[in-house]
Each structure stands twice: as structure tokens, then as C-alpha cells.
């Protein structure tokens, strides 16, 4: 088994070419479009206008969150009561809060924190879910049965009480506390997906066929498990981001979030809530930012699902 992997790659490509010729020979009127999974998915995604717009807006939003606090002329932490509660003007496009801080800058900062928490929590969810699902799927038998029954029973468990307890355990909310608190009971779906993929890998015919023709396990992993699983996991990531963003906003809103002067979108909304009777824009702006993130991520997830898993495509 000393064959050069590159050679093996070429050989397989050659095989594919042969197959293609065979296809052409037998195909009747319909031309066969040959392309790989990702290219194919890309073309399908591009055709979905809503998903493309959502992806662009999402990207712009992330750029705004990442860059604006650096280039903004205003210090997001500097209190200036002379400028407090200014309605949106040219100088402050989104107005200022009750401490006179520029809301355009504060919102970028809050979005940065919210997005970072969502990304980190999603990563944690993926790790826990993948490990749990992989163990369940690989070991199988009674353990698998017990692990899956547990997920069945706990599905939909409200994260909020557990998140609140976790925050109490760590004695207050910081960035990492929030990440842990929000991922601790949110990984059930990811675990299920992973288990399903592992079982497919173990039992499906094409995997058995690949093994029968002598494919080694890392090849099966690279050619079958990863491409198949990656798509579903990417969708899961984009489904998880909006729910974490909302969850973080809820926690901050009931006063258990990031502590001032730091901000997340939720804590900005909570600040705005204090003055909503006089200055409603102060709660609307961070809430609209949250809604934009959630809406875009949902559309992206829908688009990705249609692109990566055509079998479940909606009409």
C-alpha cells in the first residue's frame, strides 16, 4: 500500500472520465451535466435570489460589526451627557443613547459581541453534537438506543432555565460564560444529524461498495462521510446561529447578559427598553439588527438546504 495518493486521485478521475463517456453513449436526448457536489450546490444556491441577497446582507453586516468600531469617529464607551438621547441625525445616523454614545458605533460593537458568542457557541454545539452522535452511531446497540432515547425525551428542552443556572454558577455573565450557558442544552439536533451520517457510513450500500473495491477508511471518510456530513452540518450551523443570537438577546434582556459598558445586541435592546416611551428608536435599532441577522441566517440556511440536499427541496 505505498501508492502515491496523487496517482490514486488521477486514476479515479480517469475512471470518472470513462464513466462519463459511457453515460454519453447511453444517454438519449438529455445532456448529462457532470460537476462535483460543491460546484453543483453553488450553482443551485446562486439561482435562489432570496438566499443570495441574504448572504450579501449577512456578509455586509459582519463586516460592519468587525470594522466599524475601528473606523468610527466616536468612542463607543465615552459618556457625554450633552449629546444624550439625540434622535437620528446626519452626525449620528442612528442617534445616541442616554449616555450620549453614538448608536451606530454601539450597535456595531454589540453585533460584534453577539455574532462572536453565536459563532463560539455554535462551534461548541458542533463539537459536543458530533462527538455524542459519532459515539452513538459507531458503538451502536444498547448504548446507541439509550443515547437516542435520551435525545428524544429531552428534545426541545428550554435552554433558558439551564443557561440562567450556568450563569449563576460562574457568578455572572462574561463572554465565555455566555458561550457555555448557551451551548449546554442546544446540541441535540447536531448529535442526531451526526449519528444519522455515521450509521449511513456504516450501513449504506455505496460505502460497502467502496469498501469492497478496496477503498481504505480514510478515503471513505474523505470521499463519503465528510462531503455528505459537511453539507448537513453547514446547514445546522446556519440554523444554530439565529437561535443563539436570539437566546443571547433574551438572556441579556432579562438582565443576565454581558455587563456594561460592554454591549451585545440584547443588552442594547435592554438599555433602549428603559427609555422606550420617550425614545422608541433606542430599542428598535438593536432589535432590527437582531432581526436582520436572524432573518438572513434563516434564508441562508434555507438556500443551503435546497442547494446541498436537493432531495428535500421545497417546490
Amino acid at each position: 500500500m505505498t501508492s502515491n495518493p496523487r496517482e490514486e486521485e488521477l486514476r479515479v478521475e480517469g475512471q470518472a472520465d470513462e464513466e462519463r463517456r459511457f453515460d454519453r453513449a447511453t444517454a438519449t436526448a438529455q445532456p448529462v451535466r457532470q460537476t462535483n457536489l460543491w460546484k453543483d450546490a453553488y450553482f443551485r444556491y446562486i439561482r435562489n435570489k432570496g438566499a443570495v441577497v441574504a448572504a450579501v446582507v449577512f456578509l455586509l453586516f459582519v463586516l460592519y460589526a468587525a470594522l466599524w468600531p475601528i473606523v468610527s469617529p466616536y468612542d463607543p464607551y465615552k459618556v457625554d451627557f450633552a449629546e444624550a438621547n439625540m434622535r437620528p441625525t446626519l452626525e449620528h445616523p442612528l442617534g445616541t443613547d442616554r449616555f450620549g454614545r453614538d448608536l451606530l458605533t454601539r450597535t456595531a460593537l454589540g453585533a460584534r459581541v453577539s455574532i462572536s458568542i453565536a459563532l463560539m457557541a455554535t462551534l461548541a454545539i458542533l463539537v459536543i453534537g458530533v462527538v455524542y452522535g459519532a459515539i452513538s452511531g459507531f458503538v451502536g446497540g444498547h448504548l446507541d438506543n439509550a443515547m437516542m432515547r435520551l435525545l428524544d425525551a429531552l428534545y426541545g428542552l428550554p435552554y433558558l432555565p439551564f443557561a440562567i443556572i450556568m450563569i449563576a454558577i460562574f457568578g455572572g455573565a462574561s463572554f465565555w460564560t455566555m458561550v457555555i450557558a448557551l451551548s449546554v442544552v442546544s446540541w441535540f439536533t447536531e448529535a442526531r444529524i451526526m449519528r444519522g451520517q455515521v450509521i449511513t457510513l456504516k450501513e449504506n450500500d455505496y460505502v460497502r461498495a467502496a469498501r469492497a473495491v478496496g477503498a481504505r477508511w480514510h478515503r471513505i471518510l474523505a470521499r463519503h462521510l465528510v462531503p455528505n456530513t459537511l453539507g448537513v452540518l453547514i446547514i445546522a450551523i446556519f440554523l444554530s446561529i439565529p437561535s443563539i443570537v436570539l437566546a443571547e438577546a433574551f438572556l441579556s434582556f432579562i438582565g443576565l447578559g454581558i455587563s456594561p459598558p460592554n454591549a451585545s445586541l440584547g443588552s442594547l435592546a435592554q438599555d433602549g427598553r428603559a427609555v422606550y416611551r420617550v425614545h422608541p428608536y433606542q430599542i428598535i435599532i438593536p432589535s432590527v439588527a437582531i432581526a436582520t441577522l436572524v432573518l438572513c441566517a434563516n434564508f441562508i440556511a434555507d438556500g443551503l438546504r435546497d442547494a446541498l440536499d436537493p432531495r428535500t427541496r421545497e417546490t
Partner: protein
Amino acid sequence: MTKLIIRRLFWTIPVILLVVFVTFMMMRQIAGNPFRTSERVIPEAIQRNLEQKYGLDKPWYIQYATYVKNVATFDLGPSLVLRNRTVNDIVKTHFPVSMELGLYAMLFAILFGVPLGILSALRANSWFDYAAMTFSNIGYAVPSFLVATLLIYYFALQWGGTFNFPTSGWNTWESKVLPTVALGLGPMAYFARLVRGTMLETLQQEYVRTASAKGIRWHRVVVVHVLRNSLIPAVTAAAPLLGFIITGSFVIEQIFAIPGIGRYYVTAVNARDYSVVMGLTVLLSVLIVIANMVVDILYGVLDPRTRDART
């Protein structure tokens, strides 16, 4: 079928025990205890007496065993902070309020969300469909605290003269309208999207084509064949939605100052009232576990195909 029910019931018990165990262990990790706070200075001897009274001086496994035994007999123990009040008392006063709010929100979600989804699917790609789906997508994404705040701002303050909805409380029917809408809007949007999706899928099934080809009138095809088959998946959504509504109620109760479980929960955590937090967490988790069980069984009843797969 009976096998499925028995199996499902059997699995519920260890899961509940596990949830109680995890909650119990988590609560023990919280630093400090209600009798040793910096705000109140309590003499050492009294502290020890109090800890003895509530069994906090015993090793954790004895505390756990006692707790499980009490939970099994529906006794969630005394509140550690409010004297002479038990967790059961607190549940009795606050839980019905949350239940009522959750129920109204769920009803609102079903009564408006399901028809919206059905109509959108039947008129797929029409202006009505686009409007309904835009509304649902936005309703699903907008955080409920914004919905609540806007509702209060417009219907209780700005146009208060015309509508006369109070900004807070939970006593008259007027005071219940705004919280119900605020909490139910997200689930409503969710139902609308879900039902539209499953309806569109069912409409393409061959038995639907067969039925209309046989000359059965269209509304009969829809009612008999399409609706029945496409509303089943909506049943499975009920359990996760219960979790959604519980979470939402924490925020909505806070905003409208509704004396429910969610609002009390946050107070109890801040006061380190272990037994209340634990009791409420266990209660909510058990509720979800039971809801999942009911949904699974119901799904087996409604859709015989899933029976074998699930037993």
C-alpha cells in the same frame, strides 16, 4: 401500539431522574448559599441551625436521595428564602398564570398560523402567499421583546384612548391581549411556514392527483386527503414549541409584569433560592419530557407508518 406506549413510558422515568440529577448537581456548583450572603450577617450558630433544618449539612448523595423521594411524591420542598412558603405554594400561585399565558399564545399561534399556512399553500406563489410568507419570516425573526414593546407603545400608550389596553398586569381580559399576541407571534409564524411546507409537499403526492382525477371536488380533496396528511407533522412541532413558549414567557412576563413562573424564576436565581430554582427547573423539564412522550405516542396513533420505526 401498546408496546410503543409502554416503552415510551418506561424511558421517561430514567430521563426524569437524570434531569433531576443534572439540575441538582448544577445547583450545588453555585457559589454561596442563601444563609451565607454578604448582605445579611447571620451568627454562625444560627447558620448551622438553618443548614441543619434544611438538610444542607448532609452529604450531597443523601440530599439528592431525599430530594428525589420528595419529588416523586410531588413535594418540591420549602423555599429557602421566603419563610413559611413551600415551592409547591409558589408553583400553585404562579404556575397557573404562566399556563394560561402559554395556552392563549399557543391557541393564537394555531388559530392564525395554521390557516395562514394552508391558504398560502393553496395559493402558492400568489401575492397572498408572498405577503403571508414575508410576514411569517419577519414574525419569526423579530425578537418578542420588540413586538411586546411596540404593542405597548402603540396600543397602550399612543392610541391608548381608542384601545385602552393596560401596559402591564394579568387580571382583566384587556390585560391579557397584548402579552398573548407578543408571545404567540413567533410560534404563529413558525406554524404558518411549517404548514405551508408540508401542504405543498402533500399536494404533489400521487394520491392527491388520483383523488382529483377521480372527479372528487377540489375542496373535498383538500379537506379529506391533503389537510389530514399535512397537519400530522405540525403535531410534532408542538413539543419544541412548548419550549419556545416557556422561553418566551420569561421575557414577556418580565415586560408586562405578569406574576408567572418565568418572572419568579429570575428573582429566585438572584436570591439563590436553590429549592425554588431547582423545583421550577425540574417542573419545566418534566413538562417537556412528558410533552415529547405524548407527541411521540400521538404521532404513532395518527401515522401508523411510524409505529414500527419507533418501537
